[in-house]
């Protein structure tokens, strides 16, 4: 798939295995994300999507295999080291600091940064999500689901990531809200940030992405350009109900 002139992939995963006490979850995952790509990671409940993101962001240890970031081996590095190297993870269920203000949530996204452009990036986040502008002093836990997802994505952006991974962006949100969030996500992608979009709502993810990986029982069952994956008869039957 890759030709000689294409750049080193930003993220390269080879033969990744991982699991919990209850048993293995991932069985030899291969995955690549080019710089500034928008990659969809879809699959049924329990396929291992969130576990894979957990391994990529350092929350879940890898049992085997190799993860490279811009050519450097980062397998089983600590979460804070991966954040520093440009990986941001917007976890499933937003996981905001609910009793803290929206502003502090966003600032915490930039926790490891010492530069002077943190305020500029806050402005950039608010330009993407104008609805948050007058809610900065509010407790994050009191916001609506859609607004909380905005804060969660904004918190991820504040780290100035090279790779932003969003887990279940659409979960529990109205279709209109999801459309708006996807639009913003594509803007963020156009500005040069690579994205992994993990979705149970397969159509939402496949429509937005350039490439797609279909995860099934902890293995990559199918991968390729998002359009091709969307038209795959197996995918249409299993995930799209067509």
């Amino acid at each position, binding site marked *: 798939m890759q030709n000689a002139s294409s750049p080193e992939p930003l993220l390269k995963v080879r033969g990744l295995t991982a699991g919990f006490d209850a048993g293995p979850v991932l069985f030899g995952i291969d995955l690549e994300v080019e710089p500034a790509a928008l990659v969809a990671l879809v699959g049924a409940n329990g396929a291992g999507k969130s576990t894979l993101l957990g391994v990529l962001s*350092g929350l879940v240890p890898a049992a085997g295999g190799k993860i490279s970031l811009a050519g450097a081996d980062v397998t089983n590095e600590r979460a804070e080291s991966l*954040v520093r190297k440009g990986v941001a993870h917007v976890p499933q269920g937003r996981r905001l600091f609910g*009793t803290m203000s929206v502003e502090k949530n966003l600032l915490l996204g930039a926790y490891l940064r010492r530069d002077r452009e943190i305020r500029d990036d806050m402005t950039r986040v608010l330009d993407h999500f104008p609805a948050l502008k007058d809610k900065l002093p509010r407790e994050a836990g009191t916001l609506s689901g859609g607004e909380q997802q905005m804060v969660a994505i904004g918190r991820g952006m504040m780290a100035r990531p090279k790779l932003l991974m969003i887990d279940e962006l659409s979960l529990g949100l109205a279709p209109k809200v999801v459309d708006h969030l996807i639009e913003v996500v594509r803007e963020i992608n156009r500005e040069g940030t690579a994205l992994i979009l993990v979705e149970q709502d397969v159509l939402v993810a496949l429509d937005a992405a350039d490439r797609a990986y279909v995860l099934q029982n902890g293995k990559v069952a199918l991968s390729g350009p998002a359009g091709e994956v969307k038209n795959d008869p197996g995918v249409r039957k299993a995930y799209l109900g067509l």
Partner: protein
Amino acid sequence: MADFVQLVILGLLAGGVYVAVGVGFGLVWGVLNIVNLAHGSLVIVGGYLTWQLFTTLHLDPFLTLPVDAVALFVFGYALQRGVINRIIRAPLLFTFLLTFGLNLIVVNMLLLIFGSDFRSVTPSYSGQGLELGSIVIPYVRLISLGVAIALSASLAFVLNRTRTGLAINAIAADRDAAQLVGIDLRHAYAVTYGLGAACAGVAGGLIAMIQAITPTAGEPYTLQAFVVVILGGLGRVSATVVGGLAFGLVEAFGQSIPGSGSVFANAIAFSLMVLVLVTRPQGLLGRLR
């Protein structure tokens, strides 16, 4: 009327010590979810440090408090980083057992080093007080109350206005999310416990000036810290301040009831704790979580 005012003043002064003992305990409990049964022993370590510096270097005991704070911070940081971090995600019972064991170790180390004799710190001004009409305010206790308030204000400043405080609040709210924004949990936990221990050390320095200490004198303070934090409510420094002062007041008035003594006062204070738990489980100033 004068008796009443005297009681209120004595209660608030006693409350100052409880505030100092409570803030560090409340911080560790609220952020790390550890009911630190070794807290009282850390308090007494601070007391012995003040006593040692006072007797050998003849330092004014209040000037030894920063030394207590720094020494206990380092000790607490190392303890959390090296030992308690290993069970931080284990069920509450494990942290109970571990901190109970740590308490025994620290108390016995103190017995080994200092023996079981009573030690007291008596600067030239101890026993003197401010006389306002018939009301007497002991200087040591008055300054101690001021120190306790200043200690709480400093802790609140660190928690609400600094980058370290931002990280501590974040790990209290959601450990996984805190990791995802790049907070090193091992370090943040250790700093939190270190700050709690530093507060305990300052409290111990104050206590050494107010009562004679022995290596086992810390145990009641663990219990009192527990009551103070429950009274005020978990999760805010200001709540612990209110809880500590309230505890002091209740104790002072309890002791003044004719026919009652200090034993009875404790019973009243703990009854109040039960009452608060039943009617307002989040504490006087706390919030439901």
